[in-house]
């Protein structure tokens, strides 16, 4: 198998296993309250980490750029209007405008 094919099938298998692990391991049981109260907080923790690593970093370096400003402008719009659509439209527009300067 070529390197490309090995990487493709290897990544596919490992991604399948990772995505299956949680749903299979916790098979249909009624979960205790302490567990649910952690799960409720997983979304804000993971969302914030995704935003931070994508908007404030570039690979393994912390980096502030036009995209940071764009995302911040979008976040402000989401906070003021409660609209995710406004956020998603404004962020790339501001980023592109700053880069065109």
């Amino acid at each position: 198998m070529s390197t490309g094919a090995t990487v493709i099938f290897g990544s596919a298998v490992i991604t399948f296993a990772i995505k299956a692990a949680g749903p299979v391991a916790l098979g249909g049981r009624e979960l205790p309250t302490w567990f649910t109260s952690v799960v409720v907080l997983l979304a804000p923790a993971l969302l914030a980490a995704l935003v931070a690593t994508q908007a404030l970093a570039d690979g393994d370096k912390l980096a502030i750029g036009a995209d940071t400003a764009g995302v911040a402008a979008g976040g402000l719009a989401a906070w003021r209007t409660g609209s995710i659509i406004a956020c998603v439209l404004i962020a790339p527009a501001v980023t592109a405008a700053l880069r065109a300067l």
Partner: protein
Amino acid sequence: MSFGVVATDAGLSELEAIVMSAIVFAGSAQFSAVAILAQGGGAGAAIAAAALMNSRFLPMGVAFAPSLRGGPIKRALQGQAVVDASWALAARRDGSFDRMLLFGSSAAAYVTWVTGTTVGAVWGGALGDPHDLGVDALFPAFFLGLLVNEARSGRARGVAAAGALIALVLVPVAPAGVPVLVASFAALAGLTRGARDAMLQRQEAEGEPR
């Protein structure tokens, strides 16, 4: 689309780029694996990078699990539908998930992803530079918009701030993907007595307006 361009630049054939999007279907993992190959890394290193990048699907799958029905095989297959955007979109504030919304938005994302890869791989150079168009701001903005609507309680905001901080501190020192995984530990704040009481109250107050 950008994956198609990047992958063919890194030496994958057009067909390989398309097949990878079709069977791996995890953008950041595919980019990491291809970046390793482009730097001259081996297959093992590339697969390891993809695995680390996808490690965040572990806590996401754990959160999604209680909303799933059926036997292990059915659950494993349903778990494949988890991608960042649809997972975030389908999350309800009580910790459960809108299963059908998740499947629906993942299906749409899948079609867009594979089509985009095909366009990028085959006609790559002819299109405008995604960087000039600010496309890289799109996903963080989407997640931030969801977060702003999601984190209404003080506790959720505190956990979000802690998650972001953990991820940023780890970015320069940990391999790609690990910072987001470790940030999920901020949710352990749910183990405090106050958080458990709040959860119990919410469970008791049935029909509470969201």
